[in-house]
C-alpha cells in the first residue's frame, strides 16, 4: 500500500505537491528562525564575554563601582596569590588576568617628534604565555589582517582602522601615553607587529592589545591587574552556575568594609547584560513558540483541507466497496508520507541555510558604526541539536493530525449522500 501511496504522491501533484510544499516551507522557516535567533543571542553573549565581561569577572569592590572609567588606581593587587586561590577553589574554570587601560598612542617621526596621535583603549592579556588560551578566546588568528601575533615583549597588535588613521606600518614604533596605577603620566614604547579587525565596532575603532607583563611595567602595576575574568571550559555561558560561583566567591573573599577586597560579578550582572539576555530570551522563546504554533496550524489546516476537498473521492472509494477503515488508514499514511518527506526536505533546506549563515553570517556593520556594545558586526546563525527536530516535529505531525481529524468524516458517510455526490 505504501508503494501505491508513494506513486500517488508523485503522480497526482495537485493532491500532494501543494501540501508538501507547505510542509517544506514551514519546517524550513522554523529551523532557520530558530538557528538565527539562537545564533545572534549566542554571538552577543560570547562577544561580550570574550572581550569584556568574561563569564564571571573579579575586580576590587571600588573598581567595580566605576569600571566604565577604567580606574586602574583601584586595581586588584597580589594577583599571583589570588590566581592560585582561584585555581585551587575552582580548577574547572579558565582564569585569566587582564588589564584595561585608556591613553593616547603617539607615533613619532624620524626626529622622535609627534607625527600623529589618537586616543586608544588598551587590553593587556597573557599573549606570550604559550599555555594561555587568550589567543583562542579573543580569536586573534582570525582577526589578524596584516602582520603576525606578538612573539616577544614590547610588541603590540593594533586595530587596522586605528593604524590607517595614524598612518602607521608594521614594525614601526608607537608610544603609549597613559597613567600609572598611581596616577602619574607614563610613556612606553611598543613595536606594532600586527593589525587586527574583530568585526566589533567598539574594539575596531581604536584598540591595542599587548602582553599583560608589558602593560604592568608600563602602568607601574607590578603583580596587579584591573580584573580577572573566568570562563566555563566549554565556553558556554550558564547563568545559574555563574551566579552560584559569584555567591560562593563573594561570601568567602569579598568584604563590605574593604573597598579593595575582590568581588566577583557574573556576566548577567554586568553592563545591563542580564536584562538584555532575559529580554532576548523571552522574545526569542515567544517568537519561536508563536511561529511553531502558527506553522502547526497552517500544516494542520493543509491536512484538513486536503482531506475535506477529497470527500468526493472518498465517496467513490466507499461505493466501490472499500472499507471505511482502509480509506481512513490510507489517508493517514498519505499524510505521514507528505509530512515525512516535507519535514525532512524543509529541515535539510533550513539546516543548509543555517549552516551557510553560521559560516558567512550577515554583516550589520553599517548599522553599528557608533556602537559601544561588544557585539559582533557580523551576526551568525547557530545550528544545535534542537535545530534538527524543531522544524521536523511540527512538519511531520501537524498534517497527520489534520488528516486524522478531517478523516473522521469518512465514518459519517451516508449512502444517500454518496449517491448524490456520484450524480454530481
Amino acid at each position, binding site marked *: 500500500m505504501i508503494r501505491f501511496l508513494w506513486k500517488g504522491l508523485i503522480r497526482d501533484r495537485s493532491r500532494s505537491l501543494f501540501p508538501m510544499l507547505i510542509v517544506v516551507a514551514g519546517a524550513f522557516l522554523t529551523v532557520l528562525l530558530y538557528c538565527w535567533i539562537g545564533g545572534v543571542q549566542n554571538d552577543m553573549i560570547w562577544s561580550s564575554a570574550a572581550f569584556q565581561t568574561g563569564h564571571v569577572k573579579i575586580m576590587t569592590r*571600588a573598581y567595580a563601582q566605576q569600571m566604565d572609567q577604567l580606574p586602574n*588606581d*583601584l586595581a586588584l593587587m597580589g594577583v599571583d596569590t589570588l590566581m592560585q586561590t582561584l585555581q585551587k577553589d575552582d580548577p574547572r574554570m579558565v582564569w585569566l588576568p587582564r588589564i584595561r587601560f585608556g591613553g*593616547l598612542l*603617539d607615533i*613619532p617621526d624620524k626626529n*622622535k*617628534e*609627534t607625527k600623529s596621535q589618537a586616543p586608544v583603549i588598551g587590553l593587556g592579556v597573557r599573549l606570550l604565555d604559550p599555555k594561555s588560551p587568550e589567543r583562542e578566546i579573543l580569536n586573534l588568528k582570525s582577526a589578524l589582517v596584516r602582520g603576525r601575533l606578538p612573539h616577544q615583549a614590547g610588541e603590540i597588535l593594533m586595530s587596522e582602522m586605528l593604524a590607517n588613521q595614524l598612518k602607521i606600518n608594521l614594525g614601526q614604533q608607537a*608610544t603609549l*601615553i597613559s*597613567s*600609572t596605577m*598611581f*596616577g*602619574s*603620566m*607614563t*610613556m*612606553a*614604547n611598543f613595536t606594532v607587529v600586527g593589525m587586527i579587525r574583530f568585526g566589533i565596532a567598539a574594539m575596531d575603532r581604536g584598540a591595542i592589545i599587548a602582553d599583560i607583563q608589558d602593560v604592568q611595567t608600563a602602568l*607601574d602595576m607590578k603583580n596587579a591587574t584591573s580584573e580577572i575574568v573566568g570562563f566555563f571550559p566549554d565556553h558556554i555561558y550558564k547563568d545559574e552556575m555563574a551566579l552560584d560561583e559569584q555567591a560562593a566567591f563573594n561570601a568567602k573573599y569579598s568584604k563590605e568594609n574593604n*573597598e*579593595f577586597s575582590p568581588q566577583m560579578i557574573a556576566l548577567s550582572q554586568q553592563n545591563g547584560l542580564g536584562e538584555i539576555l532575559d529580554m532576548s530570551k523571552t522574545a526569542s522563546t515567544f517568537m519561536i513558540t508563536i511561529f511553531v504554533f502558527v506553522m502547526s496550524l497552517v500544516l494542520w489546516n493543509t491536512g484538513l483541507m486536503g482531506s475535506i476537498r477529497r470527500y468526493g473521492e472518498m465517496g467513490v472509494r466507499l461505493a466501490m466497496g472499500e472499507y471505511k477503515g482502509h480509506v481512513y488508514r490510507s489517508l493517514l499514511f498519505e499524510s505521514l508520507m507528505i509530512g515525512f518527506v516535507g519535514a525532512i526536505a524543509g529541515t535539510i533546506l533550513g539546516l543548509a541555510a543555517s549552516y551557510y549563515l553560521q559560516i558567512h553570517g550577515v554583516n550589520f556593520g553599517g548599522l553599528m558604526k557608533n556602537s559601544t556594545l561588544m557585539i559582533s558586526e557580523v551576526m551568525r546563525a547557530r545550528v544545535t541539536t534542537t535545530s534538527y527536530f524543531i522544524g521536523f516535529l511540527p512538519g511531520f505531525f501537524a498534517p497527520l493530525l489534520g488528516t486524522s481529524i478531517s478523516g473522521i468524516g469518512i465514518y459519517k458517510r451516508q449512502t444517500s449522500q454518496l449517491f448524490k455526490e456520484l450524480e454530481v
Partner: protein
Amino acid sequence: MKFQYILIIVLWTSIGFARNPSGDEILRQVDAKMTARTKIIVSEMIVHGRRGSRTIKSKSWVQGVEKSFTEYLSPAREKGTKMLKLGKQLWMYSPQADRIIRIAGHMLRQSLMGSDLSYEDMMEDPHLNHIYAAKVIGQENVADRPCWILQLTATTSTAAYHTRKIWVDKQRLIILREYRFAKSGKLLKTTDVLTVAKMDGRWYPEKVVFKDQLRKGKGTEFIVESIKFNSSIPAYLFSKAALRK
C-alpha cells in the same frame, strides 16, 4: 588753600585705602609677593591616595611667569622625568621612552604625577589679577592670622576655574586658604597653607595641602624645601634640547 584741600583729599583717600583696600589692589599685591624675576625651588609632593602615600621630589627653575623647567628627582620610576613650560605650551620628557611629548588639550586636565593638581593648574598664569576681578567679601581669621576674604571672578573664558574664594593674610599678603569653583558653583579644589616660612628673605607658603574635591584621596601635600629668588638661570634650560640632557 587749594594745596590744603588736595592734601586733605590725598590723606583721606590713603587712610581709606589702608582700612579697606580694593579686592583688585590686594590681588595685585599678592601676585607681587608670589612672583619673582626667577625662582629655583626644591620641593616634595606627598600624594595621599586611597591606597597609601608616595613622595615625589623635584627641582624647578622658573623665570617670570612664562618659563619653567622641572626635573623629577625621586622616586626611581619618576627620576629623570622633565617638564618644560614655555608660555602656553607644555612638554614632558620620559627617560623610559626617550620621548618628548607635548601635553595639550584634554591631557592638561589630567593629574600631575597622580597628585590633586592638574597640568592645567601648573600652566596657569600666577598673576591672578590678569585673569580675575576681585572683590573683598569679608574678613576672617585663618590659623590665627587675620585675613581678607576675596571673591575672584574670571574675566577671561580660558580661566581653568570660573570663580575662586581666597583668604589673604592681611599682613604678609599671602593666600592662606583657597576654594576653586566651576561655573556651576560646584567646589572643585581646595588649598590650605599649613605653614608659612621666611625663605630667602620673603614670607612664602612652606607647606600647602591641595585637595581635589572630585577625588576620593586624602589630598596632596606640597612642601617647599628650599627656594631662591632672582638667581640667574642659564637660558638653555628653557629649551626642548634641555629635556633630553
